[in-house]
């Protein structure tokens, strides 16, 4: 003989299976559809919210910091001993490629030849970055950010590529604190002033990116930049490091710190290099996502409650008959729990297929175009499975309560349809 609980579960399963088997296909389909929507609401809303920021984080990693970034200490002008550091990095097996950058603040000026003395100067503050275009493109794919004109080549002296937010026609807002050059396009000559040294250059390409550090910068060949700022000791301001597939950025950071690199440079993984406000936004969006998910969970619970309540009310006579012929009330309650779980599991499985089979890859390939990032759908499997568990738990409770309410009613009243 089976123990009582096992027997009730067995009978509950027996009853549930037959009820679901004979239920109207439309009704079952509709309930499952609601559960799919609930599941997607649970996962996708918060996933998109987090994905907005994750898109920005991913873009900063792929286009700017790469996996690990070494930069100038706050109280230094550049990374001292850079040649030795670069040599060290090139010997490390987990390092696939590096790009060294020179950086200085500069003022850009355009239309200086035609400007009258009474006109306001057409200037903008910018970061000038000296790069080896081949290395930079290997590490960050900077050439892919060129939307007009061409990327830099090694021999491109007196030519620059310029971030779009330094050009007025691309700036989305007209703000007093946001200076940009007017009437500058491909082939326009602009003047760069760095520490009192001026150099006239030609705009060779225009960069479009969701990464601020790129859109507010001007790139030129590193050898020309060195001559511009008069730095010939090989010390650079920044080194972005791309790791081989599977290598851990944290591990490389630890290796470099153990080598004493932190005495003359700041070593950060791409995650460390994120601004604090970005991390705060991720936390806030996670919280918001949880709030939206909770609302979705409550809605789904109420839906299941209503569905099971109506089902149990309309089947009250049969519930009475079941009790009348000796079927235990717990077995009947369990049958409704199984039905609720069935709806939740079907909804979740279809939702999972939609999520990982369609939504995540589709949005990954066609990111949502937000002004500050290419939004993706962030849905880590462990988090998603946790939400599936929550959904099943909520529907289980929502199915059990109405079933218990009806099962507890007087057996004879149920059979005879008395109130």
């Amino acid at each position, binding site marked *: 003989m089976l123990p009582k609980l096992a027997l009730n579960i067995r009978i509950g399963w027996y009853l549930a299976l037959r009820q679901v088997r004979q239920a109207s296909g439309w009704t079952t389909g509709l309930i499952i559809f609601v559960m799919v929507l609930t599941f997607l609401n649970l996962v996708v809303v918060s996933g998109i919210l987090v994905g907005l920021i994750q898109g920005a984080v991913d873009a900063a990693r792929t286009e700017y910091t790469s996996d690990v970034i070494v930069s100038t200490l706050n109280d230094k002008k550049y990374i001292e001993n850079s040649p030795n550091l670069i040599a060290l990095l090139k010997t490390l097996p987990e390092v696939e490629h590096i790009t060294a950058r020179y950086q200085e603040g500069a003022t850009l000026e355009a239309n200086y030849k035609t400007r009258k003395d009474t006109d306001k100067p057409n200037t903008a503050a910018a970061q000038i970055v000296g790069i080896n275009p081949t290395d930079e493109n290997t590490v960050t794919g900077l050439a892919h950010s060129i939307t007009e004109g061409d990327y830099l080549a090694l021999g491109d002296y007196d030519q620059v590529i310029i971030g779009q937010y330094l050009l007025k026609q691309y700036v989305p807002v007209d703000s007093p604190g946001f200076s940009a050059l007017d009437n500058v396009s491909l082939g326009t000559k602009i003047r760069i002033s760095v520490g009192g040294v001026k150099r006239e250059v030609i705009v060779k390409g225009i960069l479009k990116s969701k990464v601020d550090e790129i859109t507010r910068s001007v790139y030129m060949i590193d050898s020309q930049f060195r001559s511009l700022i008069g730095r010939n000791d090989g010390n650079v301001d920044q080194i972005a490091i791309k790791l081989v597939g599977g290598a851990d950025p944290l591990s490389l950071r630890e290796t470099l710190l153990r080598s004493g690199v932190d005495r003359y440079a700041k070593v950060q993984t791409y995650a460390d290099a994120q601004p604090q406000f970005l991390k705060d936004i991720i936390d806030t969006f996670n919280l918001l996502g949880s709030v939206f998910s909770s609302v979705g969970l409550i809605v789904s619970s109420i839906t299941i409650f209503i569905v099971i309540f109506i089902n149990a009310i309309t089947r009250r006579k049969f519930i009475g008959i079941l009790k*009348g*012929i*000796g*079927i235990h009330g717990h*077995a009947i309650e369990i049958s409704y729990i199984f039905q609720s779980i069935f709806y939740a599991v079907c909804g979740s499985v279809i939702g999972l297929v939609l999520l990982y089979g369609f939504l995540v890859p589709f949005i990954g390939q066609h990111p949502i175009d937000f002004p500050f990032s290419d939004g993706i759908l962030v849905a880590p499997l462990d988090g998603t499975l946790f939400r599936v568990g929550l959904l099943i738990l909520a529907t289980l409770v929502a199915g059990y309560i109405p079933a218990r309410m009806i099962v507890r009613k007087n057996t*004879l009243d149920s059979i005879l349809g008395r109130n």
Partner: protein
Amino acid sequence: MIQTTNLERVFKAGDVETRVLKGITFKASSGEFIAIMGRSGAGKSTFLYQLSLLDEPTSGEIVFDGVNTHLMSAEEKTHFRLAQFGFVFQDYALLPEMTALENVALPLLMQGVPRAVAYQKAQDALTKVRLGERLDNLPSQLSGGEQQRVSIARAVAHQPKLLFADEPTANLDNESSRTIMGIFQDLHRAGQTIIMVTHEDEYARLAQKIIHMDDGKIVSVTVNK
């Protein structure tokens, strides 16, 4: 086998009290086939519900095989019904989503009988009521008479000590009614104790004993020869 002492059932609706059963003392022995008759409102169905533990008497006692059912919880009564009783309802009361075989096997499964054994016993019970060919039919695919035969098979498949029937032929045509009553007679001949409510003299005469009720009381008992 079963006896009642001063059984009373009072229904309350607001301040109004209706005494449906007025102190019934009754006894049925093992193997008896008893018909309960009476005009509408006499209290015969209410009496059957008390005997079968589907309803709670307001006062009085029901003792079955020496067990006082008054002291049982609702859960114990459900278990008791499953173990000791079978019930045939007027409107068949089959579960619409289950086949004939599944309907009959259900009480057996609830008793913890292994599935294969339960299905075999259910099939045997259905064969006895001449529905061996309709095992996989849903109730909606069966006639009223066939559904009532499934209901009888369900009530007896687990070999209860006492079979209750509440106007089992009320919804059936004459031919089906006679078939049903034939099955009851066969069961009785095999030793089944039966207590049946009916308002039809023709079928009541098939029982050993007829109890006449009126106004919540037993007014006479007729023993058929």
